[in-house]
């Protein structure tokens, strides 16, 4: 009999049984998809982005389909961290599969405050920081577009929790390596790449933007090549593990991210199209390893074959 491959990976101290995680905002508060499969079979669950207080979100329309993409302007609607901990968390699966909260604020002290609150909640295994949202104290540019601001947010969260801290970067920057290195230095244990790309869409018939908010974030297969490039670039520039995401629809897409060096992947928009997407990726990765006689998934991570020479174009710090 063939033995099962070992799919477990280590994300900055957080050991997960397989590298498949759900992306924030695409898996609800964690148990909405239980009619389709048991979410505790996944590596980890990242729940809907949480803020200090309830946020109603943007007026509709909040989503529009674009070629191979989904443009959303949900407006970070959520019930607030307290309601999540009180009302949602207790009903989530009880086994050891890590639950990760994704948090964001409009000021650095909000991040710190949330980290403190989460620190006291055992069931939450790690914190993912969303720094793609506007920093209202500094003219509304996203926290994640400036290395210093990104580092400050990271630092404040790290200081207020003992749990692993994952920083989720925005792709809408000139040089993602600088931001990645800044949050690494500030103490992040892992980095998620990438959040959505800014975009918009116009209804020609009405001459109005299709989103009430005008601008939205693009996700889905359309962004996969760009996300993959950013992951490759960040991997080459930091020592901490990178979690790759952006347009992953199936295990082959997942493998692309693992090959360029992501230690784990997140499944986002795919959950909407195929509610079983994430669990199918787990199963298909297992089958793939069996077929290819790979006993440990870590053999694949970073296994991209390049002729060295060109590889240098992306990063200078790390050599695999």
């Amino acid at each position, binding site marked *: 009999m063939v033995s099962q491959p070992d799919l477990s990976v280590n994300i900055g101290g957080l050991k997960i049984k397989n590298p498949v995680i759900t992306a924030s905002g695409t898996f609800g508060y964690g148990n*909405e998809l239980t*009619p389709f499969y048991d979410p505790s079979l996944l590596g980890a669950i990242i729940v809907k982005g949480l803020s200090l207080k309830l946020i109603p979100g943007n007026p*509709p329309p909040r989503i529009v389909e674009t070629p191979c993409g989904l443009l959303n302007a949900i407006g970070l609607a959520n019930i607030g961290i307290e309601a999540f901990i009180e009302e949602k968390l207790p009903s989530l699966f009880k086994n050891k599969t890590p639950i990760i909260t994704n948090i964001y604020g409009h000021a650095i002290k909000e991040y710190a405050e949330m980290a403190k609150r989460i620190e006291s909640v055992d069931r939450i295994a790690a914190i993912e920081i969303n720094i793609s949202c506007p920093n209202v104290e500094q003219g509304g540019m996203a926290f994640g577009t400036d290395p210093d601001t990104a580092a400050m947010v990271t630092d404040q969260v790290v200081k207020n929790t003992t749990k692993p801290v994952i920083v989720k970067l925005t792709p809408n920057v000139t040089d993602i390596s600088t931001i990645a290195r800044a949050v690494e230095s500030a103490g992040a244990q892992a980095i998620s790449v990438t959040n959505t790309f800014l975009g918009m869409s116009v209804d020609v018939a009405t001459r109005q933007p299709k989103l009430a908010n005008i601008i939205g974030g693009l996700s889905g297969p359309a962004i996969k090549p760009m996300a993959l490039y950013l992951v490759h670039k960040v991997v080459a520039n930091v020592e901490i593990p990178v979690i790759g995401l952006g347009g992953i629809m199936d295990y082959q897409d997942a493998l692309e991210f693992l090959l360029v060096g992501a230690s784990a992947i997140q499944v986002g928009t795919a959950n909407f199209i*195929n509610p*079983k997407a994430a669990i199918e990726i787990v199963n298909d990765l297992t089958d793939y390893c069996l077929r290819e006689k790979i006993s440990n998934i870590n053999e694949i991570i970073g296994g991209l074959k390049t002729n060295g020479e060109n590889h240098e174009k992306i990063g200078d710090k790390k050599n695999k």
Partner: protein
Amino acid sequence: MLEETVLIEFNRQIGKDTWLMGFRSADLASLAKPGQFLMIHLDRNTKDPLLRRPFSIHRIQDRNQLMILYKIVGKGTLLLSSLKEDDPISVVGPLGNGFTISGPHERPLLIAGGMGIAPLFFIAQALNKIQKHTIKMFLGFSTSQEVVLVDQLKGLNIDLSLTTEDGSLGIKGLVTDLLDEYLRQELNKKPVIYACGPTLMLKKVAQKAITSNLRCYVSLEGCMACGLGICQGCAVKAGNSKDKPYYYVCQDGPVFSSEMIDWRAI
């Protein structure tokens, strides 16, 4: 709520740009309630269109056949219409809350605009079984070529009034004109309204129902990515709730009691 790949049993045009599709699934059929919907994926070898498309459950037959009635409005529905017998499609459902069926002594008034007939046919089927009073229905289309299902509806023992905007069949005008007229004359009958159709039509119906103090259920549409309550895309402004600023059409709806919605925001 389940996901199943079903084989298309038939898929045929029954009116201008209007198609009827049927497939069998004992599981889906046994769970389905009138007013609920399905998210359908064309499961072809393409990621464009990307998302599933929502369609109301139009009819259930023989306990295991489901039908959807749809109009070609864009690329997803165009692709749907190109599918043939035995082609597979992936269906997620049944989704949403469905209609609250009125008691046997109420007087149901069904109001459908265009494809709004899709879910109302199913509720008409259900009401027909339990209702003492005749079911009244106002059914509107823009023009005679679009008119579908009139014979089948009459078969359900429905007192049907048909309108077309251009007057090419039935009464010239809008279904909401019929409603105005009806309420002027028979408000005392206190009908319970079930409505589905274009959002602006529903707004008129709902506001009329509110001012007339009538119970009224509307089935709303909304831009949906998931249909499962995980994307929060299908928000609609709540009319009454303080701590719930938005409802989600796929979860809290698609059927809402008219006073639940903030109609000014529409």
